[in-house]
């Protein structure tokens, strides 16, 4: 890569950081408990809107995995999300009424919080419907992983987004607060992912899964990206360039091995497709606050009218991380 290009990326990174600062000013503090954060704590950063029903399980899941503090950006919820989070002793909450889309789909807000509170910590950046699965996650907490990554001089940990779906129409089984969403949405596509390399940023670009085959069978290039880098040892000079798909500086995007080996990696189980999705899709379509003019949600909405069902006889039923490892969706790498 030429020096000019490298310098261009540097300027872009600076621009993102300035933007994060500018957009970050619109964040209003609801409750700030960040003084309680200890130097070695693993932190979790989330942007959300109207996700009250998902939160009890979400917090429970990540607390048992060893996350010490949660930092939320609430984008104008009106279903009690904010109030619920403010009551949690390990959560800090900010709120904003400004546009999700114009803050680069919440990334500016998160970049802002990361810069202020994430420096020197391992930071997990996820949506409330994303659940990190990593090797040995049934016996080892996230700090075991991050200690090991530290010892290996690794700064970022990649995880592919794996869309989970129920068998039958997604509206058939209602979800209630506190319940494990993967009791309902326990199926996934095991092997229909396409991977390409983004030479500019050095990351991989992965597409596929049930959304690609159901909604984008004619336009696969429009299918949503599934590559994610959710866990990073944050430094205040870092920033997310596009959602959690890629970062700057670009070295952080190299979460894959290029010489035949496998790096340690995880999976983000995506619990988007449960019955709450129907209402969400309708609302988001109305708000037009999502990527590419909510093209994804439009496609979903059309699909939903004919009762969306992703299940096929080739769908795989989720058991545990070892199954995902055997299927080649994630890897233990040299963590044994």
């Amino acid at each position, binding site marked *: 890569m030429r020096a000019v290009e490298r310098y261009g990326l540097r300027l872009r990174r600076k621009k993102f950081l300035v933007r994060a600062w500018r957009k970050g000013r619109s964040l209003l503090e609801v409750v700030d408990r960040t003084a309680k954060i200890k130097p070695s704590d693993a932190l979790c950063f989330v942007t959300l809107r109207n996700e009250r029903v998902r939160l009890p399980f979400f917090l429970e899941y990540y607390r048992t995995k060893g996350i010490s503090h949660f930092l939320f950006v609430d984008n104008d919820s009106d279903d009690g999300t904010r109030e619920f989070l403010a009551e949690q002793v390990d959560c800090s909450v900010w709120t904003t009424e400004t546009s999700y889309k114009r803050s680069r789909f919440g990334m500016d807000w998160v970049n802002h919080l990361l810069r202020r509170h994430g420096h020197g910590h391992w930071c997990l950046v996820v949506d409330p419907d994303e659940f990190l699965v990593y090797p040995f996650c049934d*016996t080892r907490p996230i700090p075991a992983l991050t200690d090991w990554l530290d010892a290996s001089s690794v700064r970022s940990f990649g*995880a592919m987004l794996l869309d989970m779906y129920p068998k039958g129409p997604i509206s058939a089984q209602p979800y209630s607060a506190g319940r494990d969403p993967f009791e309902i949405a326990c199926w996934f596509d095991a092997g229909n992912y396409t991977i390409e390399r983004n030479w500019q940023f050095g990351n991989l670009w992965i597409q596929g899964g049930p959304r690609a*085959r159901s909604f984008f069978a004619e336009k696969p290039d429009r299918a949503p990206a599934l590559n994610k880098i959710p866990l990073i040892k944050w430094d205040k000079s870092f920033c997310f360039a596009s959602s959690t798909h890629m970062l700057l500086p670009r070295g952080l995007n190299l979460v894959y091995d*290029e*010489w035949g080996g496998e790096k340690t990696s995880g999976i983000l189980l995506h619990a988007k497709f449960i019955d709450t999705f129907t209402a969400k899709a309708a609302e988001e379509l109305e708000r037009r606050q999502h990527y590419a003019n909510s093209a994804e949600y439009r496609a979903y909405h059309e699909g939903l009218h004919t009762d969306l069902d992703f299940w096929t006889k080739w769908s795989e039923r989720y058991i545990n991380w070892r199954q995902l490892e055997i299927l080649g969706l*994630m*890897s233990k790498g040299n963590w044994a």
Partner: protein
Amino acid sequence: MSTVGFVMLCHTALHRAAQVARHWAERDCPVVIHVDKAVSRPEFEGLQKALSDLENIRFSRRHRCEWGTWSLVAASQTASELMLAQFPSVRHVYLASGSCLPLRPVEELRDYLAVRPMTDFVESVTTKDVDWTIDGLNAERFHLRFPFSWKRHRFMFDRYVELQRSVGFKRRLPADVVPHLGSQWWCLTRQTLSAILQDPARREHDAYFRMVWIPDESYYQTLARNYSRQIESRSLTLSKFDFQGKPHVFYDDHLHLLKRSDCFVARKIWPKANRLFETFLDPNHTGSSMAEPAPGKIDRVFAKALERRTRGRAGLYMHSRFPNSDWENGKTCAPYSVFQGFNDLFEDFEAWLSRRLGTRVHGNLFDPKKARFAGDQDIYAGCLSSSAAIRDYNPQRFISSLIWNTRGERQVFQFSPRDTQRPGSFMAADANAQISVITGAWAVPLFAANRDFASIRDEAARLQKREMEFVNTLRHVRTRAEVRIWTLAEFVEEPMENLQSILDVMGGATAVRLTEAPRIASMEGFGQFLQNLKNQGMNPFIMGDFPTTPTGAQPPTSDSRPYLVR
């Protein structure tokens, strides 16, 4: 009675080190603790205070330790001297770290050493015989000087090594030093250890090893050779290193593996692995008496991890394994067969082949309209879509995914010049591909087609060009697939032998003899058809020579072939 004393080098997780030190000290083993000078004073004093009730624990003078440098040897020297001076009854000194954990009761270790009173346990091999060194520095550790820190001043470290190499610098070794390397965790007898530390030439030795790289892996390992009466060249500490040269860490889920290893001490233990510390420091924990340490099982686990990290699983493309071209260690994960031209020549070839092989046989996976999976399914293994757009979005991944998703079942599919040609070069370069081609067979359906001759002519020209390109790819020097190419004319002369030769390779030793022949499409007048193409200005050469006799090449029927009824 205290025959074994422990020297512990600590720098983090002091509360765990304290726990282990207490465990040993309470069982009448003296412990000398060295704490890295980088540890803050309050922390150090906290540790001292926590262990102040035990009179057989000493703290040695503190050095600032850094990986790969002399400081680690200096720390162990100071602490060992203190041990030898203060605890005269100690017969074996065991060097451990703050992240070590005893796996077997101290009594067992004591008994084990009592039976071997003059044995030194120190891994010590000559530089020629080791392969674990990182950065390619092996013998050079001893012949170059390393004044710069590898961790903090990597640039200077590398430049200085380059400089020394380029001028051909080579250090002179002290007369009695024959370089040996090994694990830095040893257990030496008082005689050997004191001989090393009280050697008249110690100043010279120390001055030499001060500039050796990672001297803690070579100082005792080398010098013990000079004095030891009996060296067991292995470490009593179970400690495994990964490909970066850093130790593997043990967690709670390794409990059973560690129990069965029968090693005395393991390192390194994750400080928060509560279950391991609880289990192994439990006063009631017992080992398996006089068993020999057997780290074999753990070795295998870590060897597999290393293999996965460095070579990975062949044919797998995923978000943490995306090899550069030619670094895949196998482009796909299992053998598969590709047939070109067979379903044009034979009627109902796929069904016949499926019956013969007893497996599913796909149609033309790269058909421009959709992927023709076996049974004409819309979705196939791993939820692969039959959508042509999705498949053509990345045909290489489509093949590699299909082969990966169906591990354990050989994939067989048809290919044709009518199909999307993009995966051609990928398959040709793949050693797992078995590609059989009957060139020119695409002309058979054209011959039977109910179409205008002009359009047939154009189509024939197009297909011939595409097939020629594919055949050239297959004949390229970089091709690694197993390739068989016949012209149509050659193939129809002995169709059954040719088919059998393909199936023999596919099925290996258990190959089935062909008893039922697939039916060849009627080719009466085919020669004339080719002649007509020629007459129209197109030269159909790729199918070989067919006589223009009106009867054409009539293939023999099955009953004229005696070998078929066998």
